[in-house]
């Protein structure tokens, strides 16, 4: 996925949150966004995922521009998957029904075909025994892994994950990160926002540092973590990495 972002600007009222942000990546599988809180990572990710429209600027993946009209955005969202920090599972549905809902109501599968489609991933990620529970009966880590499967159920072109482990304790964080590593291995493409720097280093093909509404620096993970020319980025990593 070659990502090209040009002149992206977003504001809420009088506050400019993204300020003519530019970002270009190579044809990579995993892009990780890092940076200080309030720097604009979530705002950027929501635009990439087709959830919000920017005031100005454009986004394209592999040469295909993200649409700006409501119908085009709906079609776009059906081809990608999004995972939220707070899981946002549907609390009135079982884990299984959370997974099959988009397949049945968006992608036209019969309920039986939808259940069949999700059975294998549920097995693989050891969630099958929890499939009939409501979200309120699941642990945080289980909830987030179900949320990831929900985003993946329709076999999207890529995933967007916004701090998927920020609400989890270390043990559950590990189980979710392990799942994301596994997805990378089987070829899933994704853009991930995270504060787990060790994990970012392992999983990222490229890293973009977002701060003050701009991409301060971006490039291959090794370069970014070890010897980034930007002092702001070096200071950030120095503070955060052991």
């Amino acid at each position, binding site marked *: 996925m070659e990502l090209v972002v040009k002149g992206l600007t977003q504001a809420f009222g009088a506050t400019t949150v993204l300020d003519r942000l530019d970002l270009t990546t190579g044809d990579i599988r995993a892009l990780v966004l890092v940076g200080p809180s309030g720097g604009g990572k979530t705002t950027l990710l929501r635009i990439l995922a087709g959830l919000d429209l920017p005031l100005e600027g454009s986004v394209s993946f592999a040469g295909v521009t993200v649409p700006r009209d409501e119908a085009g955005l709906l079609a776009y969202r059906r081809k990608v*998957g*999004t995972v*939220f920090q707070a899981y946002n599972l*549907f*609390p009135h549905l079982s884990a299984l029904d959370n997974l099959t809902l988009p397949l049945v109501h968006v992608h036209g599968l019969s309920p039986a075909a939808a259940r069949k489609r999700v059975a294998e991933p549920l097995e693989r990620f050891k969630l099958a025994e929890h499939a009939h529970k409501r979200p309120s009966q699941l642990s945080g880590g289980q909830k987030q892994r179900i949320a990831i499967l929900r985003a993946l159920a329709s076999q999207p072109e890529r995933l967007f994950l916004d701090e998927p482990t920020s609400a989890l304790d270390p043990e559950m964080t590990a189980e979710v990160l392990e799942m994301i590593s596994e997805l990378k291995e089987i070829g899933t493409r994704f853009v991930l926002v995270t504060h787990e720097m060790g994990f970012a280093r392992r999983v990222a093909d490229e890293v973009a540092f977002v701060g003050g509404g701009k991409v301060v620096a971006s490039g291959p993970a090794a370069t970014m973590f070890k010897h980034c020319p930007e002092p702001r980025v070096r200071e950030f990593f120095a503070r955060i990495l052991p």
Partner: protein
Amino acid sequence: MTRALAHTLVVAILAALLTVAFWRSGYEFQWEGVWAYRQKFVTGWLTTVAMSLASLVLSALVGLVTAVGLRSRWPLIEAAARVYVELIRGTPLLVQLLIGFYVVANAVGLENRYVVGALVLALFSGAYMAEIFRGGLAAIPAGQRDAARAIGLTPWQSLRLVILPQAIRLVLPAVAGQLVSLIKDSSLLSVIAVSELTLAAQEVNSFTYSTLESYLPLAAGYLLLTLPLSALSRWLERHFAYEAG
């Protein structure tokens, strides 16, 4: 002390006080006259039940549409919904019934007083339902809408499959409470001569001149409906509070 015991005790004390009050007033009960008209009470009671249920169903629809209108992005729709809610909630049902029956229904040639009564009652209750539903919709976290959009649901699908099923659970106790109000408010239908329970009691009173004997069964008739509903409302509240936790 258990809750049931406490309830029984309070009811017993109340009954004792009432008995003493009646006894001291020197009122002499004469039930024979009223008993002769018992069929009137039964039909009146059934009419009250039917009118309340019809109005409840209609008002739920009106309330739902209005609640969506209150949250609309389009100012004109939001304004229309808001004006309706405030006009209805700011004026007495009595006035609405009289205007609805003698002016509006007359103008459009609607003559059936039962239909007009149910419609006016539904519009009246719909304004309260709208506020209940609006609260329910507002209580659904923004993340639910985000998730619905992210998986590719249309706005209508998001409302139908994600938002409403959650909002309806939240508002059920309040809706049951609204039905209690609706049943009592339906007593005003007597002013446009709908033969419901209150009108039945008024008529029996005018035939028999036994005021208390006519109106005590009226109170009992309403309690018979409202007490179980109140209990249901409280049960729903506890039941869904437990499930959310």
